[in-house]
């Protein structure tokens, strides 16, 4: 899967906006949206929120979890635990990037939030790498990881699967060949 595909899936999440125009309820295939009244908050999917923001038709309100104190707590918890802790949102990385790139003037302390989310991401990816490393070195047959998000899984997916395939091929070639090797030692 491509990271942009994961981002596309993330854009379905809902976020609150404050529009400055008025529009009746609109009926889309994915669901109903609206009605839009100036100054009244309304929940819309992220793709619509970003489009409206770029056309200067709304103001984006940051999600509840995008707060400096909450993120600091999560980051400290993540660093303490050895396993993965529950995430604020299944698409936290993508939402942070999208919202902070397009609407950083509506989100207070945007730089700190960006740094905190990056810290959380780095810690989790490091844990994932360690876990993959131990999985391979101990030649386990299966592993169970909780609380991973799609984006994190996506970062290791292609490498992990390809390398496991290669190792399987090497291992399966090694066994029959080793007996032949011994007999040719003279």
């Amino acid at each position: 899967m491509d990271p942009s595909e994961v981002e596309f899936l993330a854009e379905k999440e809902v976020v609150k906006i404050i529009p400055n125009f008025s529009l009746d309820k609109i009926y889309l295939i994915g669901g109903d949206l609206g009605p839009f009244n100036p100054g009244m908050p309304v929940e819309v999917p992220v793709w619509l929120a970003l489009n409206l923001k770029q056309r200067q038709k709304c103001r984006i309100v940051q999600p509840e979890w995008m707060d400096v104190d909450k993120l600091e707590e999560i980051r400290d918890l993540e660093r303490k635990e050895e396993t993965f802790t529950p995430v604020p949102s299944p698409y936290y990385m993508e939402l942070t990037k999208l919202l902070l790139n397009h609407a950083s003037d509506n989100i207070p302390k945007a730089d700190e939030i960006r740094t905190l989310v990056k810290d959380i991401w780095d810690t989790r990816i490091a844990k994932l790498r360690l876990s993959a490393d131990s999985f391979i070195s101990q030649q386990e047959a299966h592993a169970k990881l909780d609380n991973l998000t799609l984006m994190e899984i996506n970062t290791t997916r292609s490498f992990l699967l390809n390398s496991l395939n290669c190792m399987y091929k090497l291992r399966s070639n090694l066994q029959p060949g080793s007996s032949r090797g011994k007999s040719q030692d003279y």
Partner: protein
Amino acid sequence: MFITDIRKEFYDVVVNQRVALLVSLDIDALCACKILQALFHCDQVQYTLVPVTGWQDLGTAFLEHKEQVKLMIKQDDDLGVPSYDDIFRDEEEESGDSGNESDGDPEPSGKRRRYEEGAVERRIERQRAKREWEARRREILFDYEQYEYHGTSAAMMIFELAWVLTKDTKDMLWWAVIGLTDQWVHDKITHMKYVTDIATLQRHVSRHNHRNEDEENSLSIDCMRISFEYDLRLALYQHWSLYESICNSSYSSCHFKLWSMHGQKKLQEFLADMGLPLKQVKQKFNSMDMSIKENLREVIEESSNKYGMKDIRIQTFGVHFGFNNRFLASDVVHAAAALLENTEKDESPGDNFIKALDCLSRSNLERLHGGIALAKKKLMAIQQTVASCICTNLILSQGPFLYCYLLEGTPDVKLFSKPMALTLLCKYLLKAFVCSTRNKRCKLLPLIMAAPMDVEKGTVLVLGIPPESDTSDKKNFFGRAFEKAAESTSSRTLHDHFDTSIIELKMEDRTKFLDALITLLS
């Protein structure tokens, strides 16, 4: 068309149609174009962008597109009228006048006369009124077309439109600032007008700055911050070394007379007076010592007052986004102008137009830095040409005006085949000449400058600027003068530029054209 309410009569009409945007090649028009593009993006209006270099181009573009589009908007900075000026402006004025006159047609008191006499008298009255009206119209048109000068910046007017629609952003405000600064850098408006317009923009800037920022909710560093600066009049000094900037800015260079040895010594004295070591001053501005940079503006202002440069500081705006990016409005103007008239590679004016348009957005910083590098070369070329012209006495007094011709072998002469660069050179040269000459009468003369434009076709670019004075109202009468001189000598000229004081002329017709001008203006 002249309009009073920009929103109802212009934007609401345009927003539901497909628009052709014809933009002339100068920075003010570019900025206005950017603001209008942003508004069109918000409202999803389809538009075609066409750069035009002159009246002929305007005509061809109109003919090309007239099949598809019904309404046409032209933008350039203008000849003393509001910038929504159609090519049919004369007809508007005419119909306005004729409307007035026919209303005021005097009713003869024909009740007591016999019918035939009454009719004849009425006819005579009407003919007389018509002749008077025609004479008045000719007078008005002559006054109107005699002088050429510039009105409010087009970028500022379109920013007002955006503000009325409450769709104004900091990006648009910054483009409006650049449009106004372009008018000042290329000396198109008076100082009074510049200061008044700066005050208008300052109100918008403070409104934007107080919107989002306070102690607790600080804004991200990537957001654009525009600030009012009372900064030095040294071109590009924050992206160059201070020494280079002083040597290549017209204001400082003319006051010190840096083309002479005496001037160079005075500059060294000036730097020593401020306590700035030469080594520091000659390195890149960003690498100068912090202790020197802190009070630099005040220190320079104090010392400049001693050396007769009373206005070394000028009111302007600066922008700041990201950690590393600080630009003054005049820096961007110089960069964009250098990109627009780039003669280094053989590219079409359309490509240069797109590059210059790109450098105005925040996301194309490499383009902007490239433009700044080109602008540095351009300013150095101008400085060297001015120095050589003054030292070799290339400026001749022809009676009613001064005249200078750039020979083909002059270094960087290709740079001056473009109107904006030649205008800058011309103004700079006149200032330098006024500073260096002792002849009191010559100080009040206008300057006409000619530079080779296209060597294969054998054309020169001729340009005239009004005399240098502190209270000049920047009105330029050379447009009409050139036309009349060309007519009387039947020289092969092309009055194509929107700026009527710039024309193209065949090289062979140069002498007789000049003679005609001398007789015309004396």
